[in-house]
């Protein structure tokens, strides 16, 4: 590495590589852990997240599965019930509905239905998001579907830090955890603060402090809201960006704490507006902080259309920085 003026440059890391490091850490840490999913081994992962892991850990720890989402997610649940710590990768969220019965009726349900006897410590990871011109069947933002299910913990990986440390935290849970990773962020790079070391999977996180308005978001909304906040700062509006991170159970306390400081909120998400995470966040603010609001909560969300293939229409279907800025100006006026 080249060194200039005596300062050592910190290495940058990609979101993809951070996810891979997380996988390596948990596979080394616990013999009971194994990764299974379509093309995770010999192919190296559909998005190259698990590239090289088959060589490093062998076929018992990195298991290629056939195209049987219900089958291998169910098998992961069974393995978890029998004392293993499976990490099941569903290649993309688009295929998750094929396993939805297993996730909803078994993983999320068994502990309660068995009167506390049967825990399901499974981690289910899936790539998701909109914005790569993959058309309606491959461009989904179904966070609200998972966040609706009692019994699940649902995580949304919006930053490099969470890409690196959410999985180890999820592996410490004795309950089913769904981790939503965003394919459009895989190549994003940054410097990882090595001092962080771990994250919790209970709380939302303020990614930018501000005093005038709170932008509440998750996933790909995080970089968009941070970009919008920078632009707003140029015109003297100081926006706070709250990354929800954990979509279930929702960290209501952090949401209310921020809104009670700023008195204004805009919720931003790629998911369709109707019954989205934003609807829930907005309702909770109304229930608990209505009298502290200087302006009604606004939502910037996906347009209610199956996502079309052409770039200009796809862009128009999901929130963009311009739209977020416009909404903030509205709540500030």
């Amino acid at each position, binding site marked *: 590495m080249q060194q200039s003026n005596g300062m050592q440059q910190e290495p940058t890391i990609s979101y993809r590589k951070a996810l891979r490091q997380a996988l390596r850490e948990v596979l080394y840490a616990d013999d009971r852990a194994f990764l299974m999913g379509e093309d995770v081994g010999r192919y190296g992962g559909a998005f190259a997240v698990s590239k090289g892991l088959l060589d490093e850990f062998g076929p018992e720890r990195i298991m290629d599965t*056939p195209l049987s989402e219900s089958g291998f997610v169910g*098998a*992961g649940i069974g393995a978890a019930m029998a004392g293993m710590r499976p990490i099941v990768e569903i290649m993309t969220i688009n295929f998750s509905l094929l396993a939805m*019965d297993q996730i909803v009726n078994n993983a999320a349900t*068994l502990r309660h239905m068995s009167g506390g006897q049967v825990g399901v410590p499974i981690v289910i990871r899936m790539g998701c998001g909109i914005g790569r011109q993959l058309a309606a069947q491959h461009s989904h933002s179904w966070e609200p579907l998972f966040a609706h299910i*009692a*019994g699940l913990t649902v995580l949304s990986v919006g930053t490099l830090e969470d890409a690196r440390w959410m999985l180890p935290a999820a592996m410490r849970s004795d309950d089913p955890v769904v981790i939503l990773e965003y394919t459009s962020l895989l190549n994003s790079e940054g410097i990882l603060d090595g001092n962080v070391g771990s994250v919790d999977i209970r709380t939302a996180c303020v990614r930018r402090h501000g005093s005038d308005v709170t932008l509440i978001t998750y996933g790909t909304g995080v970089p968009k809201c941070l970009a919008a906040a920078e632009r707003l700062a140029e015109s003297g509006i100081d926006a706070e960006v709250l990354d929800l991170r954990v979509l279930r159970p929702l960290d209501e306390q952090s949401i209310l704490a921020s809104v009670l400081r700023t008195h204004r909120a805009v919720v931003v998400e790629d998911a369709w507006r109707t019954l989205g995470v934003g609807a829930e966040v907005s309702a909770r603010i109304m229930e608990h902080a209505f009298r502290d609001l200087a302006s009604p909560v606004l939502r910037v969300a996906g347009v209610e259309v199956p996502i079309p293939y052409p770039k200009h229409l796809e862009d128009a279907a999901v929130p963009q920085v311009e739209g977020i800025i416009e909404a903030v100006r509205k709540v500030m006026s």
Partner: protein
Amino acid sequence: MVDRFIMDAATAKGLLHQMLRIRRFEDASAEQYSRGNIRGFLHLYSGEEAIAAGVMQALRHDDIILSSYREHGHALARGIAPSVIMAEMFGMADGCCRGRGGSMHLFDVATNFYGGTAIVASHLPMAVGMALAIRKRDEHRIVCCFFGDGAAAEGTFAESLNLAALWSVPVLFVCENNQYAMGTALQYSHAEKDIAQKGRAYGIESVHVDGMDLLAVIDAMRHAEAVVRTARKPMLLVCNTYRFRAHSMFDAELYRSKDEVVQWKRRDPIDVFTTWATGCGLLTEDAVAQIETTVANEITEAVTMASQGDLEPVEDLERHIYATE
């Protein structure tokens, strides 16, 4: 066929006790349902007792069992107390799932009994996964998974059999073919009516068994032991049987003739076994009568205990959703 000299009187007594306990328990369940003490869906196992008794006698305490929603018989044969199951169906806190599951969701980790699953075939992949965990840890136990002919039409059935064979895991699939998926006869559900063929298509050794004949089931289990426990491979046992009662308490039985039911009842597995065991001198008529009395007392006691149980406090509604609560 099992040689009568291999079975001793105590075993014969025990097996008849198992089957009679299931039959009388189901009679009591129906009665308690009509009294309003049991609600929700109730699916009775009457007529299929030889399968639960015959399969379960071959399993070890550390083997794992999964079943469908018609699982009272399996739970009883596995050794869960009748009173605990009855209390579960009464919705009481002393039920095996603290009343949270009811008839279709009996779980008891102490006996390795993992449901009680009411989405047809959805427990098959879980059985494969539990067997995978067993294989990975190189344990000697096996998984036994009960389901019906209706489940064999689900996509998840196909996925599960393929995974079990592909991963070579020690799981015994027991298909209780009672000829009807609720009210739809096998011929209207399956183009290939021989369910064992479906197992063979996935490379799984699959055999037919007369599910009305306890001795045939016991005999089949000897072979299953060799395949699953010793050779560590999956196997499919298709037990042909018949449910004597309706699908559930809401079923008017419009889809089958009374004559058909009568024909099958002539092959009542309890009668068939009793006739054989008394005929070859393993059981006396007195012994049979004694078992009847014991069972009657067990069931009366189960109902009494269930009706005297306590309900879960409403304040505990949100407990057991996550491990920490």
